[in-house]
């Protein structure tokens, strides 16, 4: 049964209205990044004034000896490094939990699952205290180490490995004399790769967006991720650096938006709800 034209028009109008809401701040950002400081507060926000994008960008990357570029590089290091290690560890742990029966397996898994429920900011304070005792405050490790653990990633990897990696295949490989590590590398990792892309993107976004942990563990401005830097620039009520904040906001969201657009095909959101389509 084909839906009527009227219902199609109404539905699309509704979807369009909602899209306006979600896109409005993004549109504002695009427009605002082309404006000088005075136009930012003096012209209509949803439409262009004089074109100043080039000079804003130039100022953005030269202010304070180009510290903004450093912040971007730090964010990439934390997000990609933390995300990659977390994904690998989650793959190994999830595979082990799904494919090797051992005593206490259920218990270990429920502990990991329980940890998903612990909000990150609540862990950040004790982690900060521990790291300061270990003299790791104000080093990249203060952000990288906590970012390399993803209990939720283990949960996803285990669920997926259970459903997708056939025991028979592992048995056959064992009979052929392959080592357990080789089986994991050539069979496990390969079959689990769709789930692993999701785990990686998840962790990438989580680390890129993280604010609380670097805020308390990093005092050295040169180690800050871009979120911290932009917040510092924006923390003056008079906003003397408003045009830099806006241009910086635009530049800082581009990598993730691009990453998502290019990896969208691999992103398996159905995994999040625990469903596995075999």
């Amino acid at each position: 049964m084909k839906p009527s034209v009227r219902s199609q028009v109404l539905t699309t109008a509704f979807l369009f209205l909602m899209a306006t809401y979600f896109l409005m701040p993004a549109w504002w950002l695009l427009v605002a990044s082309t404006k000088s400081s005075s136009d930012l507060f003096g012209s209509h926000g949803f439409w262009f004034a004089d074109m100043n994008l080039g000079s804003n960008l130039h100022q953005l990357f030269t202010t304070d000896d180009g510290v903004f570029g450093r912040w971007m590089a730090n964010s990439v290091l934390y997000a990609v490094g933390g995300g990659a290690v977390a994904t690998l560890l989650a793959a190994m742990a999830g595979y082990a939990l799904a494919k090797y029966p051992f005593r206490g397996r259920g218990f270990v898994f429920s502990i990991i699952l329980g940890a998903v429920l612990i909000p990150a900011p609540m862990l950040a304070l004790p982690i900060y205290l521990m790291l300061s005792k270990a003299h790791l405050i104000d080093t990249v490790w203060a952000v990288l180490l906590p970012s390399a653990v993803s209990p939720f990633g283990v949960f996803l990897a285990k669920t997926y490995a259970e459903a997708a990696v056939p025991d028979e295949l592992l048995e056959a490989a064992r009979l052929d004399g392959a080592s357990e590590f080789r089986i994991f590398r050539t069979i496990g990792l390969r079959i689990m790769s769709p789930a692993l892309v999701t785990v990686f993107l998840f962790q990438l976004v989580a680390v890129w967006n993280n604010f609380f942990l670097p805020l308390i563990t990093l005092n050295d401005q040169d180690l800050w991720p871009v979120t911290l830097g932009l917040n510092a620039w924006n923390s003056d009520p008079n906003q003397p650096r408003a045009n830099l904040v806006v241009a910086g906001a635009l530049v800082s969201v581009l990598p993730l938006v691009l990453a998502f657009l290019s990896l969208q095909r691999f992103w398996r959101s159905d995994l999040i709800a625990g469903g596995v389509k075999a």
Partner: protein
Amino acid sequence: MFLAPFGALFVAMYAVPVGYAVVESLHKMKRSGLGLTPPERVWAGFDNYRRALDDDALWSGVGRVLLFGIVQVPVMLGLALVLALVLDSQSARLKGLFRAAYFLPYAIPGVVATILWAFLYMPRSSPVVSMLDGLGLPSDFLGEDAVLWSIANVVTWAWTGYNTLVIYSALQAVPRELFEAAALDGCGPWRIAWRIKVPLVAPAIALTTVFSVIGTLQLYTEPRVLRPLTSTISADYTPIMSAYHQAVENNDYGQGAAVSVLLALGTCVLSFAVLKISARLTKGRASL
């Protein structure tokens, strides 16, 4: 063993910090009368907890996030469910484009999202405020009463698309024949949506609810980023801000740790309650 590397880091970054927080919360720093010798760390028993539970500012922070959660979580998830159902319906066009538009805010960090909305809230820079003024509707998005809902709007904007996608994927996993059969039996699209689709995606809704509740309790980034721009957000506006304020700004680790432990316990209790309630609701609906 494949579990070992993850296990080691997990213990170091989860188990030990939790234990450490509990131990720390039972201690306090004792300063000598004259302040000449460095303060000494002494056993405090439940003193820190008693002080936390007596702290009016902490309680008003808790009240604030609960109020926030009771309003924002249903609004956001209701919207996400509606969007997912509409995107799943046969009447929708350009689905891929709309899905991408709704999901876009997820790729924008909370700090940046808040900065963007802050510009749209402040009368100096906001086209929204000036347009509302033009219509004769004065607005004060950062005022005493409005600021909590302005924060709620940022959170809703950032997370609705993500939740829509989770529910939408769950819907897509349901075999289409089920809906066709219902349609043949004379079920209209509204009835199919409410009686068949919603119960089938109930687990996805429960999951998004739990994560949203946890997210609400750890509300921190948005108010913290807005704080320098308005006088209406105090240093202990939310419970996490309170814990941070105690531990880092007041250098009272024990007190901050006690607040963190209380919050973690509260979060666990609430998450389990949500899971239990949703399990019961799902069961009730399935037997209809």
